[in-house]
């Protein structure tokens, strides 16, 4: 099994942020920001040194927790420092982007890394529907069409025009061509049936994030069945699971950290005003949104958001066992982990990466 570090590149003083989204840029000090990216790149270098197989980067917006709104820029900077490891952009949020531009970024990155790129396509979390003012109801359609267009743009040898539902380009002729032919490996990050089926039918990989093992297995079972229907069997690199992690020398130390985290009562992940959150979800589902009804009946307060648990928690053996469960039950071949958790500073992250590389990765190689 392969290990991937999700390079969140978080702002080092992220524990001082208020529990809101977006996070006001007033909290960003340029000097701290520069230092934070440098620390993040140091973490990437150590991960490569400790035997990680992939480094992954994600498109997220308007927050210092994962301040990589343009993941290809971040990935290309790290790729120059880390010269052998696979560079995975997991991924671009297609509904927010010009798909031709994404194709150009991916092709360029595959050239800059001499064929070390893995590409990822996602719809994005509901909060990100606010970024660039995209209509949430159109997200799924834009994702599906965007994937088709990007794959065509990367493979078509002559200029063509594209007459889509959401995109119209009268001249598409992407340069350069990807080093990996016909395209770099692609992971589709999704939980939705239509997109899982799309990945299976187009022989693309599948990415699942942060779900418990049973729910993940339900998704990967569907994917693998639909791949078989489409006449192929996905390999280990085709199924990627992203889960949060805290690994310590012993189970006791890890539990102690987690207890401290809970006692500090961290705010919800991606908190939004209830009205905005419900309006987005209603728009995604094509439902009418009753603004006044929500405001009047909001006993939990104005800000909502889910708290993410920790998927992998414990000493090296425990964490390896937890990861193996995803391998055995879900067919996961690549485990992608953000080490930058709340209350974990740069020095602690480095220690975790070192520990994971020394004591967990050798166990992952056994399955």
């Amino acid at each position, binding site marked *: 099994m392969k290990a991937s570090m999700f390079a969140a590149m978080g702002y080092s003083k992220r524990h001082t942020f208020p529990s809101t989204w977006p996070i006001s840029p007033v909290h960003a000090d340029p000097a701290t920001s520069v230092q934070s990216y440098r620390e993040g790149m140091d973490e990437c270098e150590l991960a490569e040194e400790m035997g990680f197989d992939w480094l992954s980067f994600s498109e997220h917006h308007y927050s210092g927790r994962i301040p990589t709104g343009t993941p290809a820029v971040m990935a290309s900077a790290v790729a120059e420092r880390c010269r052998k490891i696979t560079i995975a952009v997991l991924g671009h949020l297609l509904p927010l982007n010009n798909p031709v531009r994404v194709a150009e970024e991916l092709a360029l990155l595959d050239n800059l890394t001499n064929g070390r790129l893995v590409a990822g396509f996602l719809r994005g979390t509901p909060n990100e529907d606010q970024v660039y003012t995209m209509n949430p109801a159109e997200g799924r359609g834009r994702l599906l069409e965007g994937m088709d267009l990007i794959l065509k743009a990367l493979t*078509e040898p*002559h200029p*063509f*025009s594209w*007459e*889509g539902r959401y995109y119209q380009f009268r001249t598409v002729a992407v340069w350069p061509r990807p080093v990996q032919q016909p395209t770099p490996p692609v992971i589709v990050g999704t939980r939705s049936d239509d997109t899982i089926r799309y990945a299976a039918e187009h022989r693309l990989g599948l990415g699942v994030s942060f779900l418990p093992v049973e729910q993940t297995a339900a998704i990967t079972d569907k994917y693998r069945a639909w791949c078989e229907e489409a006449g192929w069997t996905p390999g280990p690199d085709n199924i990627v699971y992203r889960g949060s992690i805290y690994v310590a020398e012993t189970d006791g130390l890890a539990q102690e950290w987690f207890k401290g985290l809970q006692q500090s009562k961290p705010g919800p992940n991606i908190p939004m005003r209830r009205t905005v959150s419900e309006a987005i979800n209603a728009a995604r589902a094509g439902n009418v949104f009753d603004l006044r009804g929500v405001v009047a009946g909001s006993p939990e307060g104005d800000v909502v958001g889910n708290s993410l648990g920790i998927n992998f928690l414990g000493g090296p053996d425990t964490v390896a066992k937890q990861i193996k469960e995803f391998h055995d039950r879900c067919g996961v071949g690549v485990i992608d982990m953000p080490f930058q958790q709340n209350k974990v500073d740069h020095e602690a992250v480095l220690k975790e990466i070192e520990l994971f590389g020394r004591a967990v990765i050798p166990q992952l190689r056994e399955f």
Partner: protein
Amino acid sequence: MVFQEREVEADGFKIRYWEAGQGQPVVMLDSTGWRGTILHEALAEKYRVFSLELPGTGDSPVNMESKSMEYLAATAAKAAAGLTKERYTLIGTSFGANLAIWQAIQDPDLVEALILISPTAIQPQNAPASATAEDVHKMAFAHGENAGKHVALSPEVFAKESELAGRLVSDVESRLGDIHCPTLAVFGQEDRLVSQEAARVYREKIPNCNIALVYDAGHCIIGDRPEALLNTVIDYTEHWETFIIGHQTGLINP
């Protein structure tokens, strides 16, 4: 816009055609059952449109006289010449597009611009020999629900047209370089009756050729994505190869 049904003679055939609109002429070699679409309506708003029923297709008698694509294309050209003395935009769909190719090769002085919709001249992926009219009808759409909205050819018309298309196969690939008018070839991304590779051949061999790919459409683009086809064809008819230049405003609040 009302299309008037009329008749013109060429090579001894009595050829039915439908005419509407004013302006520069547009000659259409349509698939049976696909006249009077929103594409025809939109074209007739700006152009003088002639939609021809090729001998051996639709309700016309069995055509055993045409011995080759070249011959049938010449017949179509003579029919068009009987309708207009001006140079015209020629739009062919599926088998009609194959004839349009030959017409543009043989009569370059008549064809001002060429639009090929789902042409099957290069790398066709033929339906199985046992396929019925209903089978082929379903294969022509990307979505079953769209197939259900339209009627398949009758078994008699299907047999007649299949015999004609099967008998008149000819190698046109080596002649594509002889097409010198502006050309657009339009393909559905989900076309199961033509290889996805075919578009590249047109682009490579025809000197001034644009390729348009219509997302989420099968062979019958007008059935799956009518607005997208209309938009593309209208723009190309108006602007030829300059249709790549954007004219839509991005201004939101002046």
